[in-house]
């Protein structure tokens, strides 16, 4: 049967309120007597607070509360908004006596105005015992290194004496044997940088007490349920006393899968009884929220003359900064989301070390380790091809995973623990590669080094997979109730952070019940009202939350069919059709509207509320696939790389909403282009970030965007709602390797770190000469 709503460009259901500037974001509401919270940050990369005097600050008339480690709960926890039990170490308190990076919070002031709070910060006197610091992860691993975490109470850290948060080792076959069998072996090391998510809405939280004295937290988060659980843990307040509301979120990209402001706001409200507000400035967002894990990755590939890989070895050294949030799982994904792509290699090894340093704290960021893994892997694949005189397309076609196949890595490596056995149930990589290559004109341009004065053209490609949710862990759930006019309310815990998930949900429910998306009222993420959902991360919105609402819709549909069958006085409802708000029996041509069914069940006969419930947890994490192609122009005189055209051919299963899907693809690519070309933290000698603003940390603007062509190749994944897989993260993985490969095609140079700044390009050109 043809889909009525799925696959259609339904307008984003929250867009009208957004384009008209309605007060839908966290900080758009103002409460009477609200206290404004401002933070004092450590100027040192590593120091013990010997003494902190807040008495002068407390004397200011408008100041209500000053917080430090002395008067706040010293509950060791992780700020990572992950499912319980969290795979991240418990290594931080709300405020720490030992501060471990420039930008760590030392104190907070809650005052009647922001100005008063700022004034009070200046009056706080802190005496630091400044300690030696360590910035380089390789240094940090040495026995002689500064110990970033020496406290007794941390949990979940492999070896604090070596600053080693996690060590991962996964083997399949014997790589050394594989390298011996190879005709060529290529090894290359690539380093990625500190980069920030830069959601245009910074972190924001407000909290207040409701009429019964419960704490309400309205916050810009991706993980409302994890916020509730972790705030309860940190403040030792019963979970039942906390309500978390997620309004519209102004982008997250992973930075808001973290509990940063919520516990402080809630604590201020608890202590003062007053509403509290904390909103990060752009500078604070840079220095004190979260970043992407910088990694140093070495990939070694052995291959036969015919191009078939005999072994792949990957080593990732991940810098998790001062705290270990997401450290283990991001590094796990560096291997688990990349290596299965080339399952033709019988021997595979992945080793990773996750290391503390005295630098800002990386966390979750779109791509989640896979981005760093692909940055290196996909360039090494090209290097192998070059050595064998095979083109980049052929070598990938020889080695990539196919439908019906598996990889030992799936089972060996999960999110910080063992993974699950899984077979690929939908895949169209060859088609993606062919379409993308044709669109960019790969074979016409590749190796041609077309020149115009000092400017040289090059083309490059890269291949990717990701996942859809975390198998056997991620769960979402939903409740759907039927109203008198045949409309439904969907209550679900999922978190639309701008992606369009609420709209996708309306389409899925509309499709199952045979009603228009307009008749589906979606109410997301309010811990008092909606059922549990683990939140927005791991590319799981459509797949997991969508799976949950589909299950609930089917549950409601079954009840509707039962009522209709009784009304029609028929024996079974197997062949009934739901369309345009009616239930139809093709046998008897009888029909009844959902509105009539609702009136009947609410007011007339065997009265009850028809209500569907459903949960969804996946046994596997079906990967979407993408083939990226880019044409660049590089100026030999200035070292400037300009992307000219970017093609991304993507298989994300069945597309629920094409326009929203396009948006996810293009947005991720542009984010990735920024990561590849210009975005990086610059640090001073003391570990202070020197460029915490959009002047000096350049994210792409409208004029930096090349022609971008997203091409969607539909497949059908039997495990996803209507055949859908994920799409939100995968496409950020392409720009670093694809542009890197295009740079090699143009000039024969290969950089060993991102971003590809003009300085690095020029240096490489000079070294080559």
């Amino acid at each position, binding site marked *: 049967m043809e889909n009525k709503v799925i696959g259609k*460009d339904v*307008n*984003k259901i*929250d*867009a*009208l*309120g*957004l*384009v*008209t*500037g*309605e*007060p*839908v*974001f966290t*900080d*758009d*509401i*103002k409460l009477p007597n609200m206290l404004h919270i401002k933070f004092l940050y450590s100027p040192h990369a590593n120091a013990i607070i010997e003494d902190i005097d807040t008495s002068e600050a407390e004397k200011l008339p408008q100041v209500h509360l000053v917080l430090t480690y002395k008067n706040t709960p010293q509950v060791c926890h992780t700020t990572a908004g992950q499912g319980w039990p969290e795979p991240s170490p418990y290594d931080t308190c709300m405020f720490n006596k030992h501060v471990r990076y420039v930008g760590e919070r030392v104190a907070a002031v809650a005052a009647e105005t922001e100005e008063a709070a700022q004034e009070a910060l200046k009056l706080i006197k802190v005496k630091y015992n400044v300690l030696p610091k360590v910035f380089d992860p390789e240094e940090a691993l040495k026995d002689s290194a500064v110990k970033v975490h020496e406290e007794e109470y941390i949990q979940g850290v492999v070896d604090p004496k070596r600053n080693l948060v996690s060590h991962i080792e996964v083997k399949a076959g014997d790589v050394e044997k594989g390298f011996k069998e190879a005709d060529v072996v290529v090894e290359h090391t690539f380093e990625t940088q500190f980069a920030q*998510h*830069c*959601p*245009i*809405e*910074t972190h924001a939280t407000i909290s207040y007490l409701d009429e019964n004295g419960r704490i309400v937290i309205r916050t810009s988060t991706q993980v409302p349920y994890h916020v509730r659980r972790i705030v309860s843990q940190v403040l030792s307040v019963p979970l039942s006393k906390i309500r978390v509301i997620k309004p*519209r*979120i*102004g*982008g997250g*990209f992973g930075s808001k899968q973290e509990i940063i402001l919520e516990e402080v706001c809630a604590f201020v409200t608890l202590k003062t009884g007053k509403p509290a507000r904390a*909103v*990060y*400035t*752009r500078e604070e967002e840079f220095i004190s929220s979260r970043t992407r894990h910088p990694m140093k990755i070495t990939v070694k590939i052995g291959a036969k003359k015919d191009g078939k890989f005999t072994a792949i070895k990957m080593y990732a050294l991940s810098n998790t900064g001062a705290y270990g949030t997401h450290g283990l799982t991001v590094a796990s994904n560096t291997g688990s989301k990349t290596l299965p792509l080339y399952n033709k290699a019988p021997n595979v090894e992945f080793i990773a070390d996750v290391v503390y340093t005295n630098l800002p704290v990386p966390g979750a960021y779109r791509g989640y380790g896979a981005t760093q893994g692909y940055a290196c892997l996909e360039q090494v694949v090209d290097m192998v091809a070059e050595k064998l005189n095979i083109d980049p397309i052929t070598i990938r076609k020889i080695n990539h995973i196919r439908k019906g196949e598996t990889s030992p890595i799936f089972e060996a490596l999960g999110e910080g623990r063992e993974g699950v056995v899984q077979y690929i149930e939908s895949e169209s990589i060859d088609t993606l590669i062919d379409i993308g290559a044709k669109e960019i004109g790969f074979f016409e341009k590749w190796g041609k080094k077309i020149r115009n004065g000092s400017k040289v053209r090059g083309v490059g490609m890269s291949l990717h997979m990701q996942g859809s949710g975390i198998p056997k862990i991620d769960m979402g759930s939903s409740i759907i109730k039927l109203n008198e006019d045949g409309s439904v309310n969907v209550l679900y815990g999922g978190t639309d*952070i*701008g*992606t*369009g998930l609420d709209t996708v949900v309306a389409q899925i429910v509309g499709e199952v019940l045979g009603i228009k998306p307009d008749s589906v009222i979606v109410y997301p993420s309010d811990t008092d009202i909606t059922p549990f959902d683990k939140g927005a991360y791991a590319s799981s919105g459509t797949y997991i939350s969508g799976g949950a609402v589909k299950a609930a819709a089917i549950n409601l549909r079954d009840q509707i069919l039962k009522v209709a069958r009784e009304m029609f006085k028929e024996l079974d409802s197997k062949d009934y059709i739901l369309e345009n708000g009616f239930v139809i029996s093709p046998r008897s041509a009888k029909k009844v509207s959902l509105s009539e069914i609702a009136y009947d069940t609410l007011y007339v006969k065997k009265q009850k509320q028809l209500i569907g419930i459903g949960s969804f947890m996946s046994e596997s994490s079906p990967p979407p696939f993408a083939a990226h192609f880019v044409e660049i122009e590089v100026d030999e005189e200035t070292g400037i790389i300009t992307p000219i055209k970017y093609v991304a051919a993507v298989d994300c299963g069945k597309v629920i909403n094409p*326009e*929203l899907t*396009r*948006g996810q693809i*293009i*947005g*991720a*690519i*542009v*984010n990735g282009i920024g990561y590849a070309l210009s975005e990086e933290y610059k640090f001073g000698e003391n570990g202070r970030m020197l460029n915490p*603003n*959009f*002047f000096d940390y350049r*994210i*792409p*603007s*409208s*004029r930096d*965007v090349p022609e*971008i062509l997203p091409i969607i190749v539909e497949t059908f994944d039997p495990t996803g709602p209507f055949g859908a897989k994920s799409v939100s993260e995968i496409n950020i993985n392409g720009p670093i390797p694809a542009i890197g490969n295009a740079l090699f095609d143009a000039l024969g140079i290969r950089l060993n770190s991102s971003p590809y700044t003009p300085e690095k390009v020029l240096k490489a050109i000079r070294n080559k000469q």
Partner: protein
Amino acid sequence: MKVHYKINEKDYSFEIHPGKVLLDVLRENGFTEVKGNCYMGTCGACTVIINGAPKTSCTVLAAQVNDAEIITIKGIGSVLKPHPLQEAFIKKGAVQCGYCTPGTILSAYALLQKNPNPTDEEIKRAIDGNLCRCTGYVQQIEAIKFAIKLLTEEK
């Protein structure tokens, strides 16, 4: 000090601290449709139109624009009666998180006031100061072009 503005064609007087920037004065007085938080004029989320020109309200002192005519996103359309630019942004998938959208639409609105038929390059230049991290701009540019079509049809 007292300042007076005409905001979205209505007269307002506010008592302000002379050091306040316009963004904060507007938000504190209920104009929360003006978003923003960089206070350096770099992200464009706080764009409003002041005396006909799009400006980042986080870098304008409120006192400095006393007696100005200001247009916020609420001045060009509403939930009940959206402007063609707003309709186009909805229709063309140009809204993801929506935080930058009011500012971007106002930059486009100011452009179309002066130049009803801009080239692609002129459109890109007009919204160059409005950073967006979600969309990658492509659908925003498509939406502005679609709005031009709608506006032409209206005439």
